């Protein structure tokens, strides 16, 4: 920890030495008052809001150059007086540690050095180009708030804070990344959250020692429980209302600078299968859709595997007439069902990948060329059977029906494993795969919370199914979900609309 010297020039030379070859570092020398006390503003050009700096800091100290800074009042503690009486920037801080000063300059603050002072003044002048608030692209809703996170941490925190006006909402700021020094904010409500979860989150973030955190995904992969699993163990969202709702449930929201994706921990299967809109629509349709989603999980993972198993091993299990039709449609197909299925599934994955990387209009061209033309032509060319096209389409659509992208991707991936199992062992292989998946999921934990909750026990008795398997009417959801083991369990009082005696 290096300290500042009393001599302004020494300090500036020291900075020049450290920031050698950094040409965007600006030194702005000024003279204060009649005594012409030397002072210097140091900042990085593009990280600051220039107008703010000149108007509220430089102008403020220079405008009144007749003012006698030699007055006893001033000379005794010039830095403090500048901060208290002259500079009109909202956030000002005294600092004497060189390391912190360098961090401040790099993060976009302006540092004011004054002659004969061992302290410098940090001025909050951060201002850099950011994208405004826009609609979240990966999680759109028909009904509900449409603001999404941006790349600016402060803005994102504001979006969350606007939804929780509670002094118990705690915001812990941390810097992660040896070189990137990325700001992250850990948000939670003190009297709801379970300490063990919070402690675990803090402990894991403390342990991180990495060059740079460019996106919240880096952080996610470094603090999750089982990094070999294909399934996400931390929820990712770009919706501030989702983060706020999770914080109210007793979970931790982790916001990372420079990315619109916030993290939420812990997560369970019950929570991962929920979409943002679930709580904004009526309970009947939402309950129905939630059940559909569970069905969609099985379709996404198993549809092609079932096709393979049925056509190659158990034609007796499907209705006889369908078997005839299937046989007739496959009569020109030269491959076994598994090759056929792999061919089509891989084609659709390639299509999807190319579609994602391309911009809107070109992307839809890919969709038409890929989906319609290849599908139609490959059936006519006799490479695949029409039923296979249906299966592939169903699978792909089902993947999109799952609200969590990473979770859906997990199933997209293990689908191929199931296809291989089905090709070797038929239905038996599929079931073996399912049961191993069950065990794998049951083994997983997210910050000490069983990943399979509430389906595996935790919270089952207390009624967590009411807000996971289905969504009961709001009146029935008086308690917070139990999987987070919240300290404050009740979130709603009794409601008697029109039932008063």
């Amino acid at each position, binding site marked *: 920890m290096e300290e500042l010297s009393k001599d302004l020039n020494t300090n500036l030379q020291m900075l020049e030495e450290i920031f050698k070859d950094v040409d965007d570092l600006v030194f702005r020398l000024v003279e204060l008052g009649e005594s012409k006390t030397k002072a210097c503003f140091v900042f990085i050009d593009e990280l600051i809001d220039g107008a703010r700096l000149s108007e509220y800091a430089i102008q403020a100290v220079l405008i009144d150059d007749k003012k006698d800074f030699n007055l006893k009042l001033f000379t005794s503690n010039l830095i403090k007086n500048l901060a208290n009486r002259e500079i009109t920037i909202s956030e000002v801080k005294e600092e004497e540690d060189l390391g912190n000063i360098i961090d401040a300059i790099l993060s976009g603050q302006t540092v004011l050095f004054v002659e004969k002072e061992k302290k410098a003044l940090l001025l909050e002048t951060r201002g850099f180009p950011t994208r405004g608030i826009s609609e979240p692209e990966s999680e759109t809703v028909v009904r509900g708030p449409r603001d999404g996170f941006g790349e600016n941490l402060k803005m994102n925190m504001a979006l969350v804070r606007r939804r929780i006006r509670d002094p118990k909402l705690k915001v812990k700021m941390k810097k992660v990344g040896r070189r990137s020094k990325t700001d992250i904010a850990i948000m939670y409500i003190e009297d709801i959250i379970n300490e063990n979860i919070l402690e675990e989150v803090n402990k894991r973030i403390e342990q991180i020692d990495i060059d740079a955190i460019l996106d919240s995904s880096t952080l996610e992969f470094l603090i999750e429980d089982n990094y070999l699993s294909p399934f996400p163990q931390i929820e990712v969202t770009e919706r501030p209302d989702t983060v706020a709702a999770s914080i109210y449930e007793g979970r931790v929201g982790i916001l990372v600078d420079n990315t619109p994706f916030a993290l939420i921990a812990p997560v369970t299967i019950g929570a991962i299968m929920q979409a943002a809109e679930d709580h904004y629509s009526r309970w009947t349709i939402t309950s129905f859709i939630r059940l559909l989603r569970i069905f969609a999980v099985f379709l996404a993972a198993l549809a092609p595997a079932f096709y393979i198993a049925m056509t190659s091993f158990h034609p007796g299990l499907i209705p006889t007439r369908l078997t005839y039709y299937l046989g007739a449609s496959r009569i020109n197909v030269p491959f076994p069902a598994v090759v056929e299925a792999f061919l089509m599934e891989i084609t659709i994955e390639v299509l999807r990948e190319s579609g994602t990387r391309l911009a809107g209009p070109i992307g839809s061209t890919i969709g038409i060329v890929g989906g319609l033309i290849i599908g139609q032509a490959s059936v006519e060319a006799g490479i695949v059977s029409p039923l296979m096209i249906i299966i592939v389409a169903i699978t792909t659509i089902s993947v999109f029906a799952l609200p969590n992208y990473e979770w859906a991707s997990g199933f997209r991936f293990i689908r191929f494993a199931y296809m291989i199992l089905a090709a070797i062992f038929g239905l038996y*292989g599929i079931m073996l795969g399912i049961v191993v998946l069950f065990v794998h999921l049951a083994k997983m934990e997210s910050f000490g919370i069983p990943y399979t909750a509430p389906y595996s026990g935790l919270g089952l008795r207390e009624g967590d199914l009411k807000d996971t398997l289905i969504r009961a009417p709001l009146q029935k959801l008086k308690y917070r979900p139990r999987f987070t083991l919240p300290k404050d369990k009740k979130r709603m009082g009794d409601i008697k609309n029109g039932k008063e005696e």
Partner: protein
Amino acid sequence: MEKKNRISNQQLKALLVTTVIGIGILSLPSEVAVALNNDGWIAILIGGLIPVPFIMIMDRLFKMYPKKSYFQITKEVMSPFVAYIFFIVFFIYTIVVIGYIHRVFAEVIKAYLLENTPIKVILITMLVAVSYAARSRLEVLARVAVMIYPIILGFPIFLLVVNLPNLDYTNILPIFQLDIKQIPNGIFTAYFAYLGFEITTLAFNITEDNTKSVKYTLRGLFTVIGVYLIVFFVTLSQYGVFQLKRGIWPSIDVIKEVDLPGYFVENLDGIVLAIWVLVVYSSLGPFFHTSGIILKEIFNTKTHEVFIPFLIPITFVISIIPDNLVVVTKVMARILEYLAFIVSIILPVVIFIVAYIKKRRVKT
């Protein structure tokens, strides 16, 4: 709060039900019908009540030595030599059970799903899959059990509903025509279908609230009895007692009889059997896990995981020793019945008596 290495009583109940219900249910109706004709339900009922006193005994034992596992208690109560003999008997029991269940289930799979696949391949794949579960903590098995629990409960209800149109209830009559001498035999046969409860009682010491463990275990046991009774009555009224006696796996065959219009699936037995893989898996898991735990106690290692890979070939060999299904059901099952009798009844009683006397002596 769910603490580390703890299971809730609900999970304990689910664990009991999933462990007990496995392959026994597939052949149980015909076995009790052979012994007691139409009154097989008496055997199912009484056989299901036999475990009750032994569950109580285990509970008392764990209360005498709180926070200790069954094997630690055995070590403390018995002389080391006797304790090791107990362990070895228990170990042999578990691996024979694993071998037996595997073999029977592989035969079922071969008969209904994979006619052309060699039985050894089915055995090996199942063993490897189960070993994955056995490597984890009991807590994980309990979670899996809760997930599979609704499937098991759904099975008898499903069976009942789809069979309702073509059941002939007169087949249930006449009741109480039983031969008294046959009752013990029938009960013994039925008791065999309840094996697995002794594995679950080992978890008494890791439940969150062990004052209620017995209550939940008994609830689980009664659930199993209920499931067995429903399956028995459905198969009996479907087939009549004479045909039921000749069936090998009447509980599967009965699903074959279902033919309702509008089904997407034509032969339900294949689908139901495929789903039954989950159920059998969940009863194999705890046995496999326990055999690993016993080895851990014998060799005093830190974890049981290291032994699981070695158990795969051992259990595989045991499961392929019998030449055919007849040997499995007639010889292997007999051996197993005696082993089960020793492990689930005699061992706990002996340990309990010795422990009781020792505690008495300390007090006076």
